[in-house]
């Protein structure tokens, strides 16, 4: 049901039947390593290109989610997936292998929640029995696409972020045991003129705050309704800016309640500078870490606002600023 201008309340409360998260070798050492289902110890995943490795990651997460739900790929009505590669080839190539009817999405790093919101809407509207939402990113493939060759010696500034190598997938159904999707808010594209691709956190923070604010207003909620509110991949820089912005706009937000997936996944590792980014960042933390915490009863209601920077290497070279977006999904798990 549409609430306000841009939010959906899902009356049937679609259930997350299973979720799976896979990561690369660097992720195996991260503080949240216990919440991953599998780590590949080879950044290439025995493939001959980083792009093919990303396809493998995505396929693996999808297969793992199917296995955990006890379903076969023929049971799934639709696959909604997106990634950071040109023309979202990783998703389309993975869909080729999985043979599930497929809708490709591009929301950059906000794809995880874009997919989850749309999948919930399809289930809620009686459009499917099972929908899978998935996303992936690969550090080296993203560097190659958006920045410099991986071995190129450019000095990165402290605001730079580290693209997560990994993939996350969820399977949604009508009934069953698991976290339930309560509502979602689709974000507007916000651009406050930041044009430095090594400062994505600052570019994306206003979009995240905008979506969270709209969500709370349209759902008529205070932020303390949620046990946890997390942005996708703002990193340390973007997180501190988002906190300041929320204060300025009069959004009451307890700093213990608000966190960022880009900070959580690698912790204070200096190698990642300002934190993590990439489609897999919010997917891995939400589908792994947060769901596990929900299953342990530590969290009941969470709001995830996945953030995406909608730039291309060409738009940056043409001196365009970075348009950003955030989509929020509200998830509840009451045992």
């Amino acid at each position, binding site marked *: 049901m549409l609430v306000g201008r841009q939010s959906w309340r899902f009356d049937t409360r679609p259930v997350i039947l299973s979720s799976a998260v896979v990561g690369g070798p660097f992720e195996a050492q991260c503080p949240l390593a216990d919440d991953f289902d599998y780590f590949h110890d080879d950044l290439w995943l025995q493939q001959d290109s980083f792009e093919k490795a990303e396809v493998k990651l995505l396929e693996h997460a999808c297969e793992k989610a199917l296995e955990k739900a006890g379903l076969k790929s023929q049971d799934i009505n639709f696959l909604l997936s997106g990634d950071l590669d040109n023309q979202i080839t990783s998703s389309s190539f993975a869909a080729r292998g999985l043979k599930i009817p497929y809708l490709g999405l591009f929301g950059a790093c906000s794809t995880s929640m874009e997919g989850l919101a749309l999948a919930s809407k399809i289930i809620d509207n009686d459009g499917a029995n099972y929908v899978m939402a998935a996303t992936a990113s690969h550090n080296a493939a993203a560097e190659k696409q958006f920045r410099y*060759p991986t071995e190129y010696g450019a000095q990165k500034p402290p605001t730079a972020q580290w693209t997560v190598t990994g993939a996350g997938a969820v399977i949604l159904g009508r009934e069953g045991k698991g976290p339930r999707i309560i509502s979602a808010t689709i974000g507007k594209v916000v651009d406050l003129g*930041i044009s430095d691709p090594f400062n994505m*956190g600052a570019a994306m923070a206003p979009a995240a705050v905008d979506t969270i604010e709209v969500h709370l207003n349209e759902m008529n909620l205070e932020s303390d309704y949620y046990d946890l509110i997390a942005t996708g991949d703002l990193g340390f820089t973007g997180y501190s800016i988002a906190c300041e912005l929320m204060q300025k706009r009069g959004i009451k937000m307890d700093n213990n309640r608000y966190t960022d997936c880009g900070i959580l996944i690698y912790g204070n590792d200096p190698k990642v500078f300002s934190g993590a980014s990439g489609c897999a960042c919010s997917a891995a933390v939400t589908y792994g870490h947060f769901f596990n915490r929900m299953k342990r009863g530590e969290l009941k209601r969470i709001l995830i606002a996945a953030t995406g920077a909608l730039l291309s290497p060409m738009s940056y070279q043409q001196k365009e600023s970075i348009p950003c977006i955030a989509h929020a999904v509200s998830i509840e798990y009451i045992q």
Partner: protein
Amino acid sequence: MPKKKKNTPIQKDYQILAKKLEPKRNVALNVIRAFFTGGIICTVSQLLQNIFILYFGFDESQAGNPAIAVLIMLSALLTGLGVYDHIAQWAGAGISVPITGFANSIASAAIEHRSEGYVLGVGGNMFKIAGPVIVFGTFSAFVTAIIKILLKAMGG
């Protein structure tokens, strides 16, 4: 080049806020590191040059070339071993300004695009980063040469 878009007051306010909260590059530390790494690389290069003069019979005007070739090979090797980018993160301009940076930019692009094949991948992308340096280097050499000729013609 399109004109830079004017920022709205909201965008300007936000950029001031963001600037205030973002961690700054430690310029002083970067300069010191660059000074010492750059210095070390140049000293090594001089040492190589002396070795080529002493033991390989090069004269002073030619010894620079084999010394540079050794540096190029070393940086290409370190790039291939995946070490170079870590040194560069620490050393910054100290390692990218000497010939080492040029060699790394070509080697890294060649490695990166190996997956797209030898011709379109390696061949087509090798000079992705180094290309502009060559283009503008050649162009500025041309301009400088013209100025020199003009000055000579005017009896300078």
